[in-house]
């Protein structure tokens, strides 16, 4: 039987080859003839398709590349050249040889055929179009069936127009039934009233519980022709052949029936109902609570959990946030309404979960304030000073890890205030001040930051002394003019201390630089204000948490970066025109206010063409507005901060990295540091 077909194929193929030859000769004369090209392509296509079917795999493989070439020609991606025609002629001879030779000689292994194929591939590659990937066969893919019987739950909701593609869904269900004992229930909730029903549409969906020893892929294969257009969901209800729970099937069906109604009925009315019910419930709960308090007189208000567990929870939430971003991205790409709705719900819950999880780690800063009272008392005695410590805002909450790290710097700053700031009672009396010095430790929340201030009513910082010292140490040239803030910043330089004498408490010039580093590591800032004779104020601005922040995702060329959203004030456009108007200086006029900007493209030395319109993200850095010029502002991004690891931890200007939805890495920018570095660079170019 097969031989008879083979014979028929051989005859047909020879005919086609002859047709091809004459076609090619014509094509040599009229290389632009579209109809001719189409004929040649079709002949090749038929040879390829049929040869595989009748056991001429060699021909099929060989013809594939020639066909690809003519497909490219047909679509205009390649023009007919002498090379193509010569190569095709040569290959036709080989195909003929393959047809005649009934022996199982491997033509594909001959050097000549390999050479031809090689030239063809080179041509294909030159067009840079990738050959389409292999489609999965429409016929059943053979997968080894598992010996274990599994229970599957299948939900199948065909596309409404399934009949129009000639598909009978009942046949699919019959096929499913052949897989093993099964239980089916139809969902008829979507069937409209008789007057509105279109008999050409399929409104029914089915829930099936199937017990089968077939592999899940064989079951999925039943739906291969409809899976693209239908809602299909497969769940394995059993584990190693055993049902997850005894009455799982019945229960599952009952639940899905309920769910079915929930999904398909008027969802809004249900939502309203549930809200009302919730309100009633809440009232009940409140009343019950009141009762409880009356009756028991004691309600458990907190539990102790090890910090490790919470850290793990926060880590997991971090992973979830990353994953959720991925889900959202995929949902947006596939633009499936159902998936989008799920992705949005997941997003909302993830955010709530994140807030709750981070909230657990929040501790009132008062826990650290407690130990300062003792410190001040001991210190003031040692120094022969009288000091009163006032703490305000002890209830301000900060991440536990931040509180742990902030304790030491605070101790150091308090010591400094006591040692350098507060005068001895005699001096104070002479200056007409209360002999008892006052140090106020104040904490309050401001945006995504907590500000901790140490205010003393001491002598203030001696600017001149600081300056002289800096000049003596060679940190500053005598003629440099410095703003107050810059002068005060000098005290964070290592080796600088204005204390006239070294005490056990402070004055060795080590410490302030350590404080600065510690605050930097927390991505915080220090600001110093002082008035001679009246006292000084040190403000520490510390981000609320180190784990997850709200970030603004931006793009420069193909690089993504994150700016802390809490610092972002606004985003404006920057056109080429603007750049020219400001005489090439990095300044932009925003509502008649001059804002300096830093072009991240230049800062990170990113190559490539600047877009016509760039975006300026204006951030607040210690009260100064600074713009960051980027290509595109992508949008808000839940940023799970990851450290860059030991090798890159000292990279300045980058505080970490985060993983975006599509798996790419975005670097989080340390805007304070970048502004600082830029300032230093600009100063050095001015000199």
């Amino acid at each position, binding site marked *: 039987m097969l031989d008879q077909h083979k014979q028929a194929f051989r005859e047909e193929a020879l005919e086609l080859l002859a047709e091809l030859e004459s076609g090619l000769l014509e094509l040599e004369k009229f290389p632009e003839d579209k109809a001719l090209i189409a004929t040649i392509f079709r002949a090749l*296509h038929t040879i390829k398709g049929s040869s595989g079917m009748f056991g001429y795999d060699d021909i099929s493989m060989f013809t594939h590349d020639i066909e690809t070439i003519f497909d490219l020609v047909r679509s205009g991606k390649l023009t007919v050249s002498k090379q193509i025609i010569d190569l095709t002629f040569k290959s036709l001879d080989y195909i003929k040889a393959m047809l005649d030779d009934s022996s199982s000689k491997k033509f594909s292994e001959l050097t000549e055929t390999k050479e031809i194929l090689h030239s063809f591939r080179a041509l294909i590659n030159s067009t840079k179009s990738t050959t389409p990937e292999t489609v999965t066969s429409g016929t059943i893919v053979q997968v080894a069936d598992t010996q274990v019987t599994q229970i599957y739950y299948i939900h199948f909701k065909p596309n409404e127009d399934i009949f129009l593609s000639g598909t009978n869904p009942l*046949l699919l269900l019959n096929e499913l039934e052949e897989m093993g004992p099964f239980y089916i229930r139809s969902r008829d909730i979507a069937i409209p009233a008789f007057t509105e029903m279109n008999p050409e549409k399929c409104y029914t969906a089915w829930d099936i519980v199937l017990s089968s020893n077939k592999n899940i892929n064989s079951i999925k294969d039943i739906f291969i022709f409809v899976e693209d257009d239908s809602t299909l969901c497969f769940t394995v209800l059993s584990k190693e052949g055993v049902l997850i729970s005894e009455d799982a099937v019945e229960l599952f069906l009952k639940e899905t029936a309920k769910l079915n109604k929930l999904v398909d009925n008027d969802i809004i009315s249900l939502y309203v109902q549930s809200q009302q019910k919730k309100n009633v419930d809440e009232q009940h709960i409140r009343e019950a609570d009141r009762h409880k308090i009356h009756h028991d007189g004691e309600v458990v208000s907190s539990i102790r959990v090890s910090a490790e567990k919470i850290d793990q929870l926060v880590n997991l939430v971090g992973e979830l946030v990353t994953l959720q971003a991925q889900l959202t991205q995929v949902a947006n790409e596939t633009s499936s309404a159902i998936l989008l709705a799920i992705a949005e719900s997941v997003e909302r819950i993830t955010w709530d979960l994140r807030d709750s999880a981070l909230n657990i780690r929040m501790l009132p800063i008062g826990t650290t304030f407690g130990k300062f009272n003792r410190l001040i008392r001991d210190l003031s005695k040692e120094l022969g000073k009288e000091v009163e410590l006032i703490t305000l805002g002890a209830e301000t909450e900060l991440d536990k890890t931040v509180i742990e790290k902030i304790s030491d710097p605070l101790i150091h700053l308090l010591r400094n205030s006591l040692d350098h700031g507060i005068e001895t009672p005699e001096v104070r009396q002479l200056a007409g001040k209360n002999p008892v010095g006052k140090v106020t430790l104040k904490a309050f929340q401001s945006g995504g930051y907590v500000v901790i201030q140490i205010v003393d009513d001491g002598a203030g910082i001696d600017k001149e002394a600081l300056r002289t010292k800096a000049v003596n140490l060679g940190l500053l040239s005598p003629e440099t003019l410095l703003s107050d803030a810059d002068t005060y910043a000098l005290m964070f330089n290592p080796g600088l201390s204005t204390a006239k004498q070294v005490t056990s408490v402070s004055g060795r010039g080590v410490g302030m630089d350590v404080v600065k580093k510690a605050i930097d590591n927390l991505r915080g800032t220090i600001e110093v204000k002082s008035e001679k004779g009246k006292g000084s104020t040190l403000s520490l601005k510390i981000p609320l948490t180190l784990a997850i922040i709200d970030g603004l995702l931006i793009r420069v060329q193909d690089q993504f970066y994150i700016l802390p959203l809490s610092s972002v004030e606004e985003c404006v456009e920057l056109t080429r025109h603007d750049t020219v108007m400001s005489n090439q200086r990095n300044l932009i006029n925003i509502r008649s206010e001059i804002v300096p900007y830093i072009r991240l493209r230049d800062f990170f030395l990113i190559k490539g063409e600047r877009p016509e319109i760039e975006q300026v993200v204006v951030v607040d850095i210690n009260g100064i507005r600074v713009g960051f010029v980027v290509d595109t502002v992508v949008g808000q991004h839940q940023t799970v901060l990851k450290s860059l690891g030991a090798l890159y931890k000292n990279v300045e200007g980058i505080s970490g990295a985060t993983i975006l939805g599509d798996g790419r890495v975005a670097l989080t920018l340390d805007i304070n540091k970048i502004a600082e570095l830029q300032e230093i660079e600009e100063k050095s170019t001015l000199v």
Partner: protein
Amino acid sequence: MNKWIMTVDDSASVRQMISFTLHEAGYNVIEACDGKDALAKLSNQKVDMVVTDLNMPNMDGIGLIKELRKKTEYRFIPIIMLTTESQIEKKAEGKAAGATGWIVKPFNPEQLLSVTKKVLGC
């Protein structure tokens, strides 16, 4: 009563193979060499299913599917298209035109029969 199936392909050998296989399995088969031929022959004999190649002269498979779906009597019958692995877009196009399913060339008689049984139900 035996079901009627039409096979449409410009390659005589493929047609021969398909009709032989289907005939052996108890179906009645009509052959057509392209879309136009198929439409002409279908006006004489009503069929229960069509197996068509996509790449054909005169009227291609997609055109044939579209034409058939316009006719009341062929609105809901199964139509199977024969594709090669390099025709992914064609597959989508065919589905959009109203094809029921597809068989990827090269295929063997068993595959053809299993798909036929799948969409015809017998």
